[in-house]
């Protein structure tokens, strides 16, 4: 079983709320603009992520998901 943490870049509005609430300071905002003209969040330090889903809970745009997959790698 693998957990897949995924931020849908084009759905993210770069509000930074996830960055602020992550207990592990995993997240940062990108300097690359997305298709909507926002600077999306990304896991700057994915290795620190404890998959607590706090960022998911906070994200107003439901841009973050954590899924499980039977295969080794996330899609």
């Amino acid at each position, binding site marked *: 079983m693998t957990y897949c943490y995924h931020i849908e870049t084009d759905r993210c509005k770069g509000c930074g*709320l996830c960055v602020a609430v992550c207990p592990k300071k995993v997240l940062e905002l990108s300097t690359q603009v997305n298709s909507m003209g926002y600077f999306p969040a990304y896991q700057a330090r994915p290795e620190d992520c404890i998959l607590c889903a*706090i960022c998911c809970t906070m994200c107003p745009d439901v841009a973050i998901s*954590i899924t499980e997959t039977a295969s080794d790698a996330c899609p």
Partner: protein
Amino acid sequence: MAKLFQRPKSMFDVSTHYCPGCTHGVIHRLVAEAIDALDIRGRTVGIAPVGCAVMAYNYIDCDFQEAAHGRAPAMATGIKRVRPDLMVFTYQGDGDLASIGMGEIVHAANRGEKFTTIFVNNAIYGMTGGQMAPTTMPNQRTTTSPFGRKTEEVGMPIRMAELLATLRTPGYITRQTVIKPKYIQKAKKAIERAFVYQMENRCFSFVEVISTCPTNWGMTPKDAVQWAEDVLLPYYPLGDQKTPDSEVTEKQVAAAGAA
């Protein structure tokens, strides 16, 4: 322990028109999660307000009606009275519910209409560009209170949960917020509970949710949640104002007192 997280099933997979960091999106998700949890999508009718959430139906996937400004509780009454088997919720802003729609919410609540109201209080008129709301804080600047809300002139902000809780009939009245994850968990439970009371045909249920409007507050999303916590929450305390259980005793008292 790792947690799974996905877009609720009753939410369309589209991006919203809300501003970055606007917590309307969180509240939408909680409603959709409650619909999923109770498995009621097939018999739920939402009522979208006139306000930033006017297109809530583009995001939550169940039957929807679009209200006129402030009149969602009357529409919900219309639906619920003729189709009590449907689950009906209104989603209303503070301009919508506390200003123009004051009469409708007080009366629907007082009749004990068996629907659920999600009241999104962001202390401002979001959609129309940041005018003063009845919930705007003292000295808060808005486009129609450019020198700040002067309470000597327009009074103190209205606390809807407290106001409705003075009525005898309505059952579940609570105030929550979604500005931080810890509050979001509680808000989620409250919304679910509100739907459950409706499902059990017990009472009118009302969940006030303190929300943000970074755009019209003129703040970054981060500053907005902080301002909400520092300034709104002390005036708008979180928690249940009334639950149907406490109401039962109330009712007995009332019955005794009355004819």
